[in-house]
């Protein structure tokens, strides 16, 4: 049932022979999948994409695409569509000529070319701009042309390198949905690079979180968010309160973590950590309960250090478990409760909602 279109086998990349930008990548992408490479800048995600596109050569290992190894296959013979961050449209050609270009390379007949150019422009809702020059279009329109151009020659795989990075927030969210719909409609495999976790979570079938040239976790968005594999993923994706402690007891999937102030937290044990090991508790601010609702196994008293109102939610900074930057994100369905800075309130969370992870590697 597994039908991988891309397989990375022990792929490494070093520009200077000393420091490895990418360290032994092993992963596969299924046919028709939308996989996002997510990570901070310098994490190796863009280098990985460039090796797949053929713009960089791996220093070691093999990349297999559609059953054949890509070593020594130049970029122009790979048949992989690429969407660039700065669009890279040919400024001396009209929009239609930009789209026609890849099909001319494939020696597609004129009539079919024109028909497919029309189809692709209609798909991105730009049919009326076929004769314009790219410089006469807005950023969003140029990005849609770049998208259409990368798809019009029917590649099996399309790579996107931070394609929405230059657009404003509203347009970006609109384009995210548009790209997602096009992917669903065409069934093409997409490998997408971004440093925007929101983009990664909303668009992808699976997300590969990159850090220090390695994939820290490759999993569906829900798993990345709910069950981060390590402390880096937990802090990079979304927000997490992190409390340092030592494992006091273990019982299968559950454990007890002792905090520096002596109190203990019951949590899910994310990784295999023996009793006595240093560990980090990761807890999402939106999972924190206060007041009478804080009645579960984990129940503490905490002082409100700061209270910030955001309209749709309120954030509390609390002094808890040896940390004075413990954050709770509260949404109130029935009006705001009267909370004061300096007030001592009950705080708690469900055991199932917090995760104990190994300390972050450096």
């Amino acid at each position: 049932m597994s039908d991988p279109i891309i397989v990375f086998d022990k792929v490494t990349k070093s520009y200077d022979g000393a420091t490895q930008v990418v360290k032994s990548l092993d992963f596969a992408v299924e046919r028709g999948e939308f996989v996002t490479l997510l990570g901070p800048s310098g994490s190796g995600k863009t280098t990985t994409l460039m090796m797949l596109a053929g713009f960089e050569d791996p220093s070691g290992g093999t990349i297999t695409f559609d059953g054949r190894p890509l070593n020594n296959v130049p970029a122009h013979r790979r048949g992989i569509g690429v969407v660039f961050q700065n669009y890279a449209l040919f400024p001396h050609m009209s929009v239609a000529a930009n789209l026609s270009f890849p099909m001319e390379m494939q020696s597609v007949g004129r009539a079919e070319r024109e028909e497919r150019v029309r189809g692709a422009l209609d798909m991105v809702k730009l049919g009326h701009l076929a004769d314009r020059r790219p410089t006469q279009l807005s950023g969003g329109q140029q990005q849609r042309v770049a998208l259409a151009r990368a798809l019009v020659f029917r590649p099996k795989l399309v790579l996107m390198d931070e394609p929405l990075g230059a657009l404003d927030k509203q347009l970006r969210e609109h384009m995210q949905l548009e790209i997602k719909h096009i992917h669903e409609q065409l069934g093409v495999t997409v490998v997408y690079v971004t440093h925007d976790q929101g983009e990664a979570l909303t668009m992808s079938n699976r997300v590969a979180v990159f850090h220090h040239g390695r994939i820290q976790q490759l999993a569906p968005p829900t798993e990345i968010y709910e069950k981060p594999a390590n402390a880096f993923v937990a802090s990079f994706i979304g927000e997490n309160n992190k409390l340092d402690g030592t494992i006091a007891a273990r019982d299968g999937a559950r454990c007890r973590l002792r905090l520096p102030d002596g109190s203990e937290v019951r949590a899910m044990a994310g990784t295999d950590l023996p009793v006595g090991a240093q560990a980090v508790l990761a807890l999402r601010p939106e999972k924190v309960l206060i007041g009478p609702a804080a009645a579960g196994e984990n129940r503490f008293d905490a002082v409100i250090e700061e209270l910030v109102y955001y309209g749709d939610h309120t954030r509390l900074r609390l002094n808890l478990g040896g940390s004075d930057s413990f954050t709770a994100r509260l949404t109130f369905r029935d009006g705001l409760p009267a909370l004061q800075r300096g007030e001592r309130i009950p705080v708690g969370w469900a055991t199932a909602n917090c995760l104990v992870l190994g300390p972050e590697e450096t």
Partner: protein
Amino acid sequence: MAGTAPSSPARKLSAGRLALALVTALILLFLVAPIVVVFPLSLSSGELLVLPTPGYSLRWYEDFFTSSRWLSATWNSFVVGIATMILATLLGTLAAFGIFLGRFPGKALLLAILSLPMVTPVIVTAIAMYFSLSLVGLGSTLTGLILAHTVLSVPFVLLTVLASLQTFDQNLLRAAASLGANPAIAFRRVVLPLIAPGVATGALFAFATSFDELIVALFIASPGQFTLPRQMYAGLREFLSPTIAAAAVLLILFSVLLLALNEFIRKRAQARGASPSGPTA
């Protein structure tokens, strides 16, 4: 613009401003007068290169266009100039693209070596060319002269093309490759159209370099193969006929035409907005 602006400075005709205007006019006259002088000389009706002219006529232009020596010199100049332009443009453009893309040690050194003919005294290049071309049997031939002029012209093409490549977005090459274009097609369909203004300017410079060139022509061309500058030089030494002035005027007008052409190319490139694609990210 804060501060106290001087009240209408253009109206203030102080002594200083007057002196500046005078000096500027004198310098301009100094630069232009020698060139302007050949115009009345070329229209002289007399036999001698003297001012004032005894009267005006077009007889020296007629002499230019009927004399086989002048016509063959003109023909040779155009043959050498156009061949030099084609060769130098081809070599210079490819060299510029290679240097632009290449990531190799000694890039700056290579660029310096290739631009060396621009700063080497022409007489040195001429002597070196004379000996080396004689060694391979190309001394005293037009082919040899074309090769020597190409060496002198390549730096101009190289530098103008390199300048126009500065605004070329290398992602366009990657885009072309991802769309299935091999490097040769990508160069012809994507790079060349975008750097065309620079290539055209370089070609004009190459042509002009060869067309004006005297010293190398003296050394390399055979005694029977005169180019225009060489014919003028010979004419000046042997018989001071005002035909030289007529030829000079024709050369000046032709140079102005080349300059105008260059300006036209530049303006058109600006109007077409030869700027990198996309926003500045």
